[in-house]
Protein backbone atom coordinates (compact mmCIF):
# COMPACT_ATOMS: atom_id res chain seq x y z
CA UNK A 1 0.00 0.00 0.00
CA UNK A 2 2.98 2.31 0.51
CA UNK A 3 4.17 3.08 -2.98
CA UNK A 4 1.10 3.23 -5.06
CA UNK A 5 2.09 5.41 -7.90
CA UNK A 6 5.46 7.07 -8.36
CA UNK A 7 3.79 10.15 -9.77
CA UNK A 8 1.29 10.68 -7.01
CA UNK A 9 2.16 13.37 -4.50
CA UNK A 10 1.92 11.47 -1.26
CA UNK A 11 0.47 13.57 1.49
CA UNK A 12 2.18 12.91 4.81
CA UNK A 13 0.06 11.66 7.68
CA UNK A 14 0.30 14.77 9.80
CA UNK A 15 -0.59 17.03 6.89
CA UNK A 16 -3.69 15.04 6.03
CA UNK A 17 -4.78 15.12 9.67
CA UNK A 18 -4.36 18.89 9.72
CA UNK A 19 -6.22 19.27 6.44
CA UNK A 20 -9.15 17.28 7.81
CA UNK A 21 -9.12 19.34 11.00
CA UNK A 22 -9.24 22.59 9.03
CA UNK A 23 -12.03 21.18 6.90
CA UNK A 24 -14.06 20.17 9.95
CA UNK A 25 -13.55 23.52 11.66
CA UNK A 26 -14.59 25.48 8.56
CA UNK A 27 -17.59 23.19 8.09
CA UNK A 28 -18.67 23.86 11.67
CA UNK A 29 -18.41 27.60 11.11
CA UNK A 30 -20.49 27.63 7.96
CA UNK A 31 -23.08 25.23 9.32
CA UNK A 32 -23.41 27.09 12.58
CA UNK A 33 -23.42 30.69 11.46
CA UNK A 34 -23.20 31.82 15.09
CA UNK A 35 -19.96 33.49 16.07
CA UNK A 36 -20.38 33.53 19.84
CA UNK A 37 -17.49 32.54 22.07
CA UNK A 38 -19.28 29.55 23.59
CA UNK A 39 -20.30 28.06 20.26
CA UNK A 40 -16.88 28.65 18.74
CA UNK A 41 -15.35 26.85 21.70
CA UNK A 42 -17.83 23.97 21.36
CA UNK A 43 -17.03 23.84 17.66
CA UNK A 44 -13.35 23.49 18.44
CA UNK A 45 -14.09 20.75 20.95
CA UNK A 46 -16.33 18.95 18.46
CA UNK A 47 -13.77 19.13 15.67
CA UNK A 48 -11.06 17.77 17.93
CA UNK A 49 -13.36 15.00 19.14
CA UNK A 50 -14.23 14.06 15.55
CA UNK A 51 -10.59 14.06 14.61
CA UNK A 52 -9.69 11.95 17.61
CA UNK A 53 -12.34 9.38 16.72
CA UNK A 54 -11.21 9.41 13.10
CA UNK A 55 -7.62 8.78 14.14
CA UNK A 56 -8.78 5.98 16.43
CA UNK A 57 -10.64 4.52 13.47
CA UNK A 58 -7.22 4.38 11.74
CA UNK A 59 -8.33 6.34 8.74
CA UNK A 60 -4.89 7.82 8.29
CA UNK A 61 -2.89 4.64 8.51
CA UNK A 62 -3.15 3.69 4.86
CA UNK A 63 -3.37 5.91 1.86
CA UNK A 64 -7.08 5.48 1.36
CA UNK A 65 -7.81 8.74 3.05
CA UNK A 66 -6.54 11.59 0.96
CA UNK A 67 -8.41 14.15 -1.02
CA UNK A 68 -6.72 15.29 -4.25
CA UNK A 69 -8.62 18.55 -4.38
CA UNK A 70 -7.12 21.12 -6.66
CA UNK A 71 -7.90 23.33 -9.60
CA UNK A 72 -7.80 20.35 -11.93
CA UNK A 73 -10.43 18.64 -9.83
CA UNK A 74 -12.82 21.56 -10.24
CA UNK A 75 -12.25 21.44 -13.97
CA UNK A 76 -13.00 17.74 -13.94
CA UNK A 77 -16.25 18.38 -12.04
CA UNK A 78 -17.41 20.82 -14.69
CA UNK A 79 -16.59 18.33 -17.42
CA UNK A 80 -18.49 15.67 -15.47
CA UNK A 81 -21.46 17.99 -15.09
CA UNK A 82 -21.62 18.38 -18.86
CA UNK A 83 -21.43 14.62 -19.34
CA UNK A 84 -24.18 14.06 -16.76
CA UNK A 85 -26.42 16.56 -18.50
CA UNK A 86 -25.79 15.01 -21.89
CA UNK A 87 -26.43 11.45 -20.83
CA UNK A 88 -29.47 12.49 -18.76
CA UNK A 89 -31.03 13.80 -21.94
CA UNK A 90 -30.22 10.51 -23.68
CA UNK A 91 -31.82 8.46 -20.93
CA UNK A 92 -34.81 10.80 -20.86
CA UNK A 93 -35.32 10.18 -24.57
CA UNK A 94 -35.20 6.44 -23.99
CA UNK A 95 -37.59 6.55 -21.06
CA UNK A 96 -40.13 8.71 -22.83
CA UNK A 97 -40.08 6.86 -26.15
CA UNK A 98 -42.97 4.38 -26.35
CA UNK A 99 -40.89 1.39 -27.48
CA UNK A 100 -38.19 1.61 -24.75
CA UNK A 101 -35.13 1.00 -26.98
CA UNK A 102 -32.80 -0.49 -24.37
CA UNK A 103 -30.03 -2.96 -25.10
CA UNK A 104 -28.16 -3.58 -21.85
CA UNK A 105 -24.45 -4.41 -22.00
CA UNK A 106 -21.81 -5.44 -19.54
CA UNK A 107 -18.12 -4.73 -19.93
CA UNK A 108 -15.00 -4.74 -17.83
CA UNK A 109 -12.89 -1.63 -17.94
CA UNK A 110 -9.45 -1.28 -16.46
CA UNK A 111 -8.90 1.98 -14.59
CA UNK A 112 -5.78 3.81 -15.67
CA UNK A 113 -4.75 4.88 -12.20
CA UNK A 114 -3.51 2.50 -9.54
CA UNK A 115 -4.61 4.72 -6.68
CA UNK A 116 -7.74 3.41 -4.92
CA UNK A 117 -9.10 6.93 -4.56
CA UNK A 118 -8.94 7.46 -8.32
CA UNK A 119 -10.58 4.13 -8.96
CA UNK A 120 -13.44 5.03 -6.66
CA UNK A 121 -13.74 8.44 -8.28
CA UNK A 122 -13.85 6.72 -11.66
CA UNK A 123 -16.43 4.15 -10.58
CA UNK A 124 -18.64 6.73 -8.90
CA UNK A 125 -18.41 9.05 -11.90
CA UNK A 126 -19.55 6.16 -14.07
CA UNK A 127 -22.52 5.57 -11.76
CA UNK A 128 -23.29 9.26 -11.56
CA UNK A 129 -23.64 9.47 -15.32
CA UNK A 130 -27.10 8.12 -16.10
CA UNK A 131 -27.02 5.22 -18.53
CA UNK A 132 -23.92 3.61 -17.11
CA UNK A 133 -23.58 1.88 -13.75
CA UNK A 134 -20.51 0.44 -12.11
CA UNK A 135 -21.36 -2.83 -10.44
CA UNK A 136 -18.06 -3.95 -8.99
CA UNK A 137 -14.51 -2.75 -8.50
CA UNK A 138 -11.90 -5.45 -8.22
CA UNK A 139 -8.18 -4.67 -8.37
CA UNK A 140 -8.65 -1.79 -10.76
CA UNK A 141 -11.06 -3.60 -13.07
CA UNK A 142 -14.49 -2.05 -13.03
CA UNK A 143 -17.52 -4.03 -14.16
CA UNK A 144 -19.85 -1.63 -15.93
CA UNK A 145 -23.47 -2.14 -16.88
CA UNK A 146 -24.79 0.20 -19.54
CA UNK A 147 -28.27 0.87 -20.77
CA UNK A 148 -27.36 1.20 -24.44
CA UNK A 149 -24.52 0.29 -26.72
CA UNK A 150 -23.87 3.94 -27.34
CA UNK A 151 -23.30 4.70 -23.69
CA UNK A 152 -20.80 1.89 -23.46
CA UNK A 153 -18.96 3.15 -26.50
CA UNK A 154 -18.63 6.60 -24.94
CA UNK A 155 -17.10 5.04 -21.87
CA UNK A 156 -14.81 2.78 -23.88
CA UNK A 157 -13.30 5.79 -25.58
CA UNK A 158 -11.58 6.29 -22.24
CA UNK A 159 -11.91 10.04 -21.99
CA UNK A 160 -13.13 9.96 -18.39
CA UNK A 161 -10.32 7.64 -17.33
CA UNK A 162 -7.76 9.87 -19.04
CA UNK A 163 -9.02 12.93 -17.23
CA UNK A 164 -8.99 11.22 -13.84
CA UNK A 165 -5.49 9.87 -14.37
CA UNK A 166 -4.31 13.31 -15.40
CA UNK A 167 -5.51 14.77 -12.07
CA UNK A 168 -2.72 13.11 -10.16
CA UNK A 169 -0.01 13.64 -12.75
CA UNK A 170 0.72 17.25 -11.90
Amino acid at each position, binding site marked *: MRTLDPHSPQIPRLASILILFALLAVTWL*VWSGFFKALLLFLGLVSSVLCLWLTIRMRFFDDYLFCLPVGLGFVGYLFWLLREVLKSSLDV*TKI*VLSPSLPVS*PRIARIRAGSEHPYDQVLF*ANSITLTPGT*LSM*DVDKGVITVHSLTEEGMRDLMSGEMDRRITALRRK
Partner: protein
Amino acid sequence: METVIDIVSWLLLTSGGFFVLVGGVGALRMPNLYTRMHAASVTDSIGPILVIGGLILQAGMTLVSIKLAAILVFLLLTGPTASNALASAAMLSGHRPGLAQKMSAEDES
Protein backbone atom coordinates in the same frame (compact mmCIF):
# COMPACT_ATOMS: atom_id res chain seq x y z
CA MET B 1 -29.89 41.35 -12.60
CA GLU B 2 -32.36 40.16 -9.97
CA THR B 3 -34.88 39.06 -12.55
CA VAL B 4 -32.23 37.27 -14.61
CA ILE B 5 -31.17 35.25 -11.58
CA ASP B 6 -34.80 34.57 -10.77
CA ILE B 7 -35.54 33.34 -14.27
CA VAL B 8 -32.46 31.14 -14.36
CA SER B 9 -33.27 29.66 -10.99
CA TRP B 10 -36.89 28.94 -11.93
CA LEU B 11 -35.60 27.34 -15.11
CA LEU B 12 -33.24 25.12 -13.12
CA LEU B 13 -35.94 24.20 -10.63
CA THR B 14 -38.55 23.26 -13.21
CA SER B 15 -36.11 21.29 -15.35
CA GLY B 16 -34.95 19.55 -12.18
CA GLY B 17 -38.55 18.65 -11.40
CA PHE B 18 -38.95 17.38 -14.95
CA PHE B 19 -35.89 15.12 -14.75
CA VAL B 20 -36.97 13.79 -11.37
CA LEU B 21 -40.35 12.94 -12.83
CA VAL B 22 -38.72 11.24 -15.83
CA GLY B 23 -36.64 9.12 -13.48
CA GLY B 24 -39.76 8.08 -11.60
CA VAL B 25 -41.54 7.14 -14.83
CA GLY B 26 -38.45 5.26 -15.98
CA ALA B 27 -38.22 3.32 -12.74
CA LEU B 28 -41.76 2.15 -13.41
CA ARG B 29 -41.45 1.42 -17.12
CA MET B 30 -38.06 -0.27 -17.39
CA PRO B 31 -38.10 -4.05 -17.79
CA ASN B 32 -35.68 -5.27 -15.10
CA LEU B 33 -33.72 -4.27 -12.03
CA TYR B 34 -30.51 -3.00 -13.61
CA THR B 35 -32.24 -0.92 -16.26
CA ARG B 36 -34.46 0.51 -13.53
CA MET B 37 -31.35 1.54 -11.67
CA HIS B 38 -30.27 3.56 -14.71
CA ALA B 39 -33.58 5.40 -14.67
CA ALA B 40 -33.31 5.97 -10.93
CA SER B 41 -29.85 7.42 -11.40
CA VAL B 42 -31.43 10.25 -13.42
CA THR B 43 -33.26 11.29 -10.27
CA ASP B 44 -30.16 10.73 -8.17
CA SER B 45 -27.68 12.77 -10.18
CA ILE B 46 -29.14 15.44 -12.42
CA GLY B 47 -32.25 15.99 -10.29
CA PRO B 48 -30.43 17.15 -7.14
CA ILE B 49 -27.92 19.17 -9.18
CA LEU B 50 -30.64 21.18 -10.88
CA VAL B 51 -33.07 21.53 -7.96
CA ILE B 52 -30.45 22.45 -5.39
CA GLY B 53 -28.67 24.61 -7.95
CA GLY B 54 -31.91 26.55 -8.40
CA LEU B 55 -32.35 26.90 -4.64
CA ILE B 56 -28.75 28.13 -4.28
CA LEU B 57 -29.46 30.86 -6.83
CA GLN B 58 -32.54 31.82 -4.82
CA ALA B 59 -30.60 31.95 -1.57
CA GLY B 60 -27.79 34.10 -2.95
CA MET B 61 -24.46 34.51 -1.21
CA THR B 62 -25.45 33.37 2.27
CA LEU B 63 -24.62 30.59 4.68
CA VAL B 64 -27.84 28.91 3.59
CA SER B 65 -26.45 28.34 0.12
CA ILE B 66 -23.29 26.82 1.60
CA LYS B 67 -25.47 24.41 3.54
CA LEU B 68 -27.35 23.61 0.34
CA ALA B 69 -24.03 22.99 -1.40
CA ALA B 70 -23.07 20.62 1.42
CA ILE B 71 -26.33 18.75 0.93
CA LEU B 72 -25.62 18.47 -2.79
CA VAL B 73 -22.06 17.24 -2.23
CA PHE B 74 -23.16 14.57 0.22
CA LEU B 75 -26.03 13.48 -2.02
CA LEU B 76 -23.69 13.11 -4.98
CA LEU B 77 -21.18 11.22 -2.84
CA THR B 78 -23.60 8.81 -1.23
CA GLY B 79 -26.07 8.33 -4.11
CA PRO B 80 -23.74 6.41 -6.45
CA THR B 81 -22.29 4.54 -3.48
CA ALA B 82 -25.75 3.34 -2.51
CA SER B 83 -26.52 2.35 -6.13
CA ASN B 84 -23.28 0.41 -6.27
CA ALA B 85 -24.03 -1.29 -2.97
CA LEU B 86 -27.45 -2.29 -4.27
CA ALA B 87 -25.95 -3.67 -7.51
CA SER B 88 -23.36 -5.58 -5.49
CA ALA B 89 -26.04 -7.01 -3.21
CA ALA B 90 -28.09 -8.12 -6.21
CA MET B 91 -25.02 -9.71 -7.87
CA LEU B 92 -24.12 -11.40 -4.59
CA SER B 93 -27.46 -13.19 -4.48
CA GLY B 94 -27.07 -14.32 -8.04
CA HIS B 95 -29.40 -11.85 -9.70
CA ARG B 96 -27.94 -11.71 -13.22
CA PRO B 97 -28.80 -8.92 -15.60
CA GLY B 98 -30.41 -9.83 -18.88
CA LEU B 99 -28.06 -8.75 -21.63
CA ALA B 100 -28.29 -8.09 -25.29
CA GLN B 101 -24.68 -8.97 -25.93
CA LYS B 102 -21.51 -9.24 -23.90
CA MET B 103 -18.55 -7.04 -24.58
CA SER B 104 -15.11 -7.24 -23.12
CA ALA B 105 -12.31 -4.75 -23.08
CA GLU B 106 -9.84 -5.99 -20.52
CA ASP B 107 -6.89 -4.39 -22.20
CA GLU B 108 -8.34 -0.97 -22.83
CA SER B 109 -6.85 1.59 -20.60
